[in-house]
């Protein structure tokens, strides 16, 4: 009991310390970079959503490494976890005792909506909050819900791993194309003089590639977990 009280008081103390720190954070805040992005971000990248402008233009190299880390994680899971060439939905998903009827019926209604919303988030990444990673994970959720609804589902895991690697290579190729058009690596292929409409083509292409890659990677990890064991 005494230990619990001590732990609780420590946690509450930590909480108030963090609230204090957040108040100080506003004072120390350095807004030089924010002002730069606010004034020049849209003109230089062609993206209304400045976050997308940063991760698909100024810091495209970081995004490539992030996608690469996901690729390495998926390859590691596929190497450790045992899986077949074509993976069936396992039998224990049939057990209505573990997966409630309510969840299944609501999932049936939600599945197309979630899928559509994921595609919307991917395609509108440069106009509204969202983008490849977020939309990809929403798409992955939709694909995973399908495993609770459709019990006869089969997945070709080898093909998923292959497509994911090809998408990563395409991502590298398209993002390094700017070396030939503008003279330096890892930025928008289209120069800002040609207009926002042409620049957004590049942004949409990269967002779609990243979204597909993330969705496939997360789905592959989930399926590998399903199979592990008997």
């Amino acid at each position: 009991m005494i230990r619990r009280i001590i732990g609780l008081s420590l946690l509450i103390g930590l909480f108030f310390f963090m609230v204090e720190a957040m108040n100080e954070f506003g004072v120390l805040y350095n807004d030089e970079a924010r002002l730069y992005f606010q004034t020049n971000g849209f003109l230089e990248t062609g993206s209304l959503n400045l976050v997308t402008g940063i991760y698909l233009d100024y810091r495209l190299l970081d995004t490539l490494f992030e996608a690469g880390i996901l690729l390495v994680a998926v390859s590691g899971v596929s190497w450790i976890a045992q899986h077949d060439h074509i993976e069936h939905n396992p039998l224990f998903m049939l057990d209505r005792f573990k997966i409630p009827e309510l969840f299944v019926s609501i999932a049936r209604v939600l599945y197309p909506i979630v899928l559509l919303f994921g595609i919307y988030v991917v395609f509108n990444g440069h106009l509204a909050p969202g983008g490849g990673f977020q939309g990809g994970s929403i798409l992955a959720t939709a694909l995973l819900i399908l495993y609770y609804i459709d019990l006869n589902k089969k997945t070709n895991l080898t093909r998923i791993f292959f497509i994911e690697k090809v998408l990563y290579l395409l991502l590298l190729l398209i993002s390094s194309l700017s070396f030939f058009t503008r003279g330096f690596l890892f930025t928008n292929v289209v120069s800002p003089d040609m207009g926002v409409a042409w620049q957004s083509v590049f942004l949409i292409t990269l967002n779609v590639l990243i979204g597909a890659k993330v969705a496939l990677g997360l789905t592959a990890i989930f399926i590998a977990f399903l199979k592990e064991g008997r």
Partner: protein
Amino acid sequence: MNELIALGFQLFMLVTAIAVVFQKNNFTVIILMSVYSLIAATLYMFNQAPDVAIAEVAINAAIIPLIYVIAISRQREIIVYDTLHHGDITPGKVFEGEIYTYLYTFSKKNKLRLNVCSDLEGDDATLIREMNVDFIITKEEETYVLKGKSHHMLMKKMVKELKQHPHIRTELIEEGHDLD
């Protein structure tokens, strides 16, 4: 006003975090964790970071609970391989051996589902290491032999309990390090 609402959300988040630590039921823990990340997403929205909020909701409130649900529904079952071909253990049936009564009461006490099968092939070590079988039942003259992994939590419990049963002997199988 906004700051007060944010403070209230932070306090609620702290309460959920503590509840996750003290909660015993695994499914409730999953729900509490997704509640925690939903509050975190709301706080991100308060600090004008909608992109981060979307990522938080999509990953921590949707995908991770789905994976955890699968992992936990795996945990609720013990798979027993019966070499004596006695078939399934049902509550209404008269049991032929002491070990079946014991396994039935053990699984009921720990709220696990007992899955007895007798149609597997392979030697004991590969069955336990690769097919995810928890226990194997064999018989030597009058005593039953219960084989299981040496690091298995349930096996450690059983070894303690089975000291009172003279007709059941336990045998531990070391887990292999053949992957290294």
